[in-house]
């Protein structure tokens, strides 16, 4: 039910055949420097006169700050400054906040009048070393007046709950119900309505390296230089400058490699602002690097934390008609990205299934916890899990085969617009499923399952088929509002290519440095594909923000597609100039020439040829050999805007295209549940992914393995546990459990390639798929193992406590 005409899709591309480098599992070009310890992380950086900052954290979940006495700390050895929250509020404006109505839940680098979660910063000490800074923290005397805490999202929304933000007047930061398609009709005509209540608890990305910044404010020039491992600062630079109350052209953010992010360093501004504020106050460079407790309790990047009440409209034959989703999300004490996580969900809310209507009610609850940010999947992984649990439950209630019910509902015609208005550009869900059934040895495991059950063992097979959206558009952050404050429309990415006098190519990337995956390898392969060079000969550099081109950075699995577009655009400009130069040198007509194997030559006359190096040396050194209007050098840039995004309708019954390049995967874990202990172990795990044309199969496999490992963490181990008083019980890795190589099974990985019609080479993003699939698949597997006992788990992570409670309850039902 579209309420506007859909704009035209971009032109359908034809893809190059016989690719030489794109599709090869070349050795990663990043590896040598990192494996030799020469990556150059924040913790490795030191500059003359550098001081260290440490932050005093609130022990209370919710309390008024009635006084801070820092005199003793200020007098401690090696201490240069103590800045309290109240003082920081004078020095800096609030942090950049994309949430609804930020003035009603003002977010600052340090708390001012009250603390709203355990771990919120209340003061910062600057000292000669981190040791001395931490010694001084212990001498700061903060007087708190504790307030009742609210930690459950549904209780937070109930009448009489303690208010996290008085100015908001309630704990509901956002509420809206969207109807897409004819929901009423689908539910009225349904044979069966499958309902469930599901709970996904919060976990988060756990990079080996925490977030940090080294800031140096120059009082002579008024310039602030910040080295930081945060991502995505180029496009939003002015916001950090705004917080620092300096002109945007006086701020330079220099990229430093990130030792892992998984989303958690996406636009991490607080450490940069704290270091910058301290440096400006003390007149020295200041390094602030979170320790693990800082990061776990205060990283501002906790993952999703949702309660779902869901209804699925089904026909008795297995046809899925529509879905009615009512979700409450626990955002914590602030809401920096608004409910963008639900935009992610709406991009693929119906999964691979051809249902015709969606009702989506979302309520954002404020509680006394650290706020949410980004974590691999950005909220769409939760939707995948919810949808697959519902489909699985429908199959059981209707006594249908779990493979058949999925296949029956697959979308098979592309491009396909789902009820929310987003498009699925291409796909072959049957192909992926067929491959997964074979790779996983599905029939064999069904037989094993039956055999094991006779022995009293509980084996479960968790087949799921789900989507992996890629290449986000900014509209998902503002289509929530009828009158958005900042309706940005493009999320560009830029590349500069420079061909030096010898023909060597350097690619400059913007927005951030290396963030843990393979941007350099991928760009090198794309450049090599364009110029017929060896990818290992392509040099990659990263530019700071000051001289940077517009660039959004990694997020929403957008980097490969966007950088490919930028590489293609910059290549076209360089080749146009090189062609003209070659034609001039050969006294040939450019129209008679073609690019062949690293140079331009006259068609049919291969000896009439200039290699890229021949052309480059002439363009660099012999300008006067060329026509008047040709400039020296061979360098060009491309700012590549999002290739396919359209605007939402005014009534928001159609959200437009905002996540068009739709990947797909089928995961098949086989688990065994130990009934006595409530533990889950893996017997096998197969995963088939389709994210369009592959650039580097091995690096994509790395994404799948890593993402699946994180998904195993989400499904079985990882949880930020806050008790009823808001105390964080999992503030270190002693209690926040991460699966290791011992818990993660060896994955059988299969690739399927369904090219996108709209991107260079047909590439789609594929950085998040493992984590977007594994939690759903593991939950389905556990329920499959226990279905005969009447046990169904609806809450993640599936801990021994939760599983044993479910098993005990089923046993007592049976005996009672």
């Amino acid at each position, binding site marked *: 039910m579209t309420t506007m005409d859909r704009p035209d899709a971009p032109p359908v591309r034809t893809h190059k055949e016989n690719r030489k480098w794109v599709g090869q599992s070349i050795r990663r070009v990043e590896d040598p420097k990192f494996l030799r310890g020469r990556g150059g992380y924040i913790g490795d950086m030191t500059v003359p006169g550098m001081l260290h900052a440490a932050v005093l954290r609130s022990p209370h979940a919710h309390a008024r700050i009635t006084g801070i006495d820092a005199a003793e700390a200020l007098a401690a050895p090696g201490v240069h400054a103590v800045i309290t929250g109240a003082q920081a509020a004078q020095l800096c404006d609030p942090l950049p906040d994309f949430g609804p109505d930020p003035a009603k839940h003002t977010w600052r680098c340090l708390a001012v009048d009250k603390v709203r979660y355990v771990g919120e910063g209340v003061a910062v000490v600057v000292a000669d070393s981190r040791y001395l800074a931490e010694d001084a923290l212990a001498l700061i005397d903060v007087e708190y007046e504790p307030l009742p805490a609210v930690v459950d999202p549904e209780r937070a929304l109930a009448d009489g709950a303690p208010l996290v933000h008085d100015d908001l007047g309630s704990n509901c930061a956002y509420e809206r119900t969207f109807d897409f398609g004819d929901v009423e009709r689908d539910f009225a005509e349904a044979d069966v309505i499958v309902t469930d209540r599901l709970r996904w608890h919060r976990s988060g990305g756990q990079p080996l390296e925490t977030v940090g910044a080294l800031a140096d404010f120059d009082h002579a020039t008024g310039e602030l230089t910040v080295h930081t491992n945060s991502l995505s600062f180029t496009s939003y630079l002015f916001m950090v400058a705004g917080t620092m109350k300096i002109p945007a052209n006086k701020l330079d953010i220099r990229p430093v490699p990130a030792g892992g992010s998984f989303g958690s360093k996406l636009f991490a501004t607080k450490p940069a602002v704290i270091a910058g504020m301290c440096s400006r106050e003390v007149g020295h460079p200041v390094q602030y690097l979170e320790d693990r407790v800082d990061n776990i309790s205060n990283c501002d990047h906790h993952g999703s934390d949702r309660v779902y009440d869901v209804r699925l409209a089904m026909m008795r034959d297995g046809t899925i008609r529509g879905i009615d989703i009512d979700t409450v999300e626990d955002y914590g004490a602030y809401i920096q990205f608004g409910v963008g996580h639900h935009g992610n969900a709406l991009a693929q809310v119906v999964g691979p299934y051809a249902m015709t209507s969606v009702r989506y009610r979302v309520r954002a609850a404020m509680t006394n916890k650290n706020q949410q940010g980004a974590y691999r999947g950005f909220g769409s992984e939760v939707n995948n899990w919810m949808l697959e649990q519902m489909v699985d439950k429908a199959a059981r209630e209707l006594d249908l085969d779990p493979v058949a019910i999925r296949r029956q509902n697959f979308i098979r015609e592309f491009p396909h617009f789902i009820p929310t208005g987003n498009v699925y550009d291409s796909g072959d869900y049957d192909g992926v499923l067929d491959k997964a059934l074979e790779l996983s040895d599905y029939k064999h495991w069904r037989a094993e399952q039956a055999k094991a059950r006779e022995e009293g063992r509980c084996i479960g097979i968790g087949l799921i088929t789900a989507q992996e959206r890629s290449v986000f558009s900014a509209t998902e952050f503002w289509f929530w509002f009828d009158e958005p404050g900042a309706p940005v429309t493009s999320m560009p990415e830029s590349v500069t290519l420079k061909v030096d006098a010898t023909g060597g190519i350097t690619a400059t990337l913007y927005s951030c440095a290396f963030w843990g995956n393979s941007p350099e390898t991928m760009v090198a392969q794309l450049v090599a594909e364009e110029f017929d060079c060896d990818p290992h000969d392509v040099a990659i550099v990263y530019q700071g923000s000051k001289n940077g081109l517009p660039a959004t950075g990694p997020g929403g699995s957008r980097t490969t597609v966007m950088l490919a577009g930028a590489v293609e655009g910059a290549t076209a400009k360089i080749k146009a100039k090189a062609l003209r130069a070659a034609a001039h040198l050969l006294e040939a007509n450019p129209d008679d020439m073609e690019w062949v194997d690293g140079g331009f030559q006259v068609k049919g006359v291969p000896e009439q040829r200039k290699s890229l190096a021949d052309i480059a040396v002439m363009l660099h050194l012999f300008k006067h050999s060329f026509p008047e209007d040709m400039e020296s050098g061979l360098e060009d840039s491309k700012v590549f805007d999002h290739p396919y995004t359209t605007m939402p309708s005014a009534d928001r019954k159609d959200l437009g295209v905002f996540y068009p390049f739709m990947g797909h995967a089928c995961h098949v874990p086989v688990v065994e549940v130990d009934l006595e202990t*409530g533990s889950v172990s893996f017997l096998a795990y197969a995963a088939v992914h389709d994210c369009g044309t592959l650039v580097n199969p091995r690096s994509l496999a790395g994404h799948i393995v890593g993402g699946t490992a994180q998904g195993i963490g989400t499904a079985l181990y990882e949880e930020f*546990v806050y008790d009823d008083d808001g105390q964080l019980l999992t503030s*270190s890795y002693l*209690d926040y*459990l991460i699966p290791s190589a*011992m*818990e993660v099974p060896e994955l059988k990985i299969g690739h399927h390639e369904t090219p996108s019609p709209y991107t260079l080479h047909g590439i789609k993003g594929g950085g998040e798929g493992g984590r977007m699939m594994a939690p759903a698949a593991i939950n389905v597997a556990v329920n499959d193992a226990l279905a005969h006992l009447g046990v169904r788990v609806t809450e993640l992570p599936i801990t021994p406590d939760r599983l044993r409670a479910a098993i005990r309850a089923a046993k007592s039902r049976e005996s009672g």
Partner: protein
Amino acid sequence: MKPPPFQYAAPTSVAEAVELLGAHADDDARALAGGQSLVPLMNFRLAQPAYLIDLRRIEELTRIRTEGDTLVIGAMVRQSHAEHAPEIAVGAPLLAEALGYVAHPPIRNSGTVGGSIAHADPAAELPAVVLALDAELVLAGLGGTRTVAAADFFTGPFSTAIGSGEILTEVRIPRRAGGHAFVEFARTHGNFALVGVAAVVELDGGTVARASIALSGVAPVPVRATAAEEALTGTVPDDASIRAAVDAAVAGLSPAGDVHGGRETRTDIARSYLRRGIELALSRAGDRR
């Protein structure tokens, strides 16, 4: 996560270490063994010793020897050394098996046998092992040495019979015949166990002649499953007698819950792992039925 300031000394003999401990008794002096528990506690500022006496240079504490039927392990023997030492494989296979569950290999390369016992974490493996094996712990102080039975050694979570000014120097383990088994349940490999079971069962003509079973993780200190030992002894073990022994032991447990498992779950797991430990020990006892 940086420790507050502290003073540091690295003596090379037990005598010197004891002297330093005595001299700095008022400074909250602490002995440092492998540092795998104390140093993190210091970094979290949960332990703030003003004086740290590093025992790692005391050569005399790094030896393993056999005195008749007793295995004598120096307190500073590295866990990874002990894990693979032939004397221990022969003299105390229970200890060798349990060491494989202590954290991860890099931690065992630094961690020591004595350090883990003296730290007395209720969830740790080695305290349960020395309790099950009726080991003796030798303590040295300014006034000389004394020996404490494992049963009297653990006095509470992270607290032991080691007095002010004393250090643990030796672990003396009597050789035990029969089947040895250590099993534990941890949520992830190498993490603290929710429940550990150390079991030694001797058979005589198919009848249980003697059973020693200790549990970790279910009480403030490691505990002997006396009820199970008594229930098993004198029986010809079968599923029913094992179940009876396990039930007897579990009836006396009231483990404290935490974020990794509540009281009921820990009790469930203790029940399961007691059975597994007893069965494994019996299977190794050589002469079942």
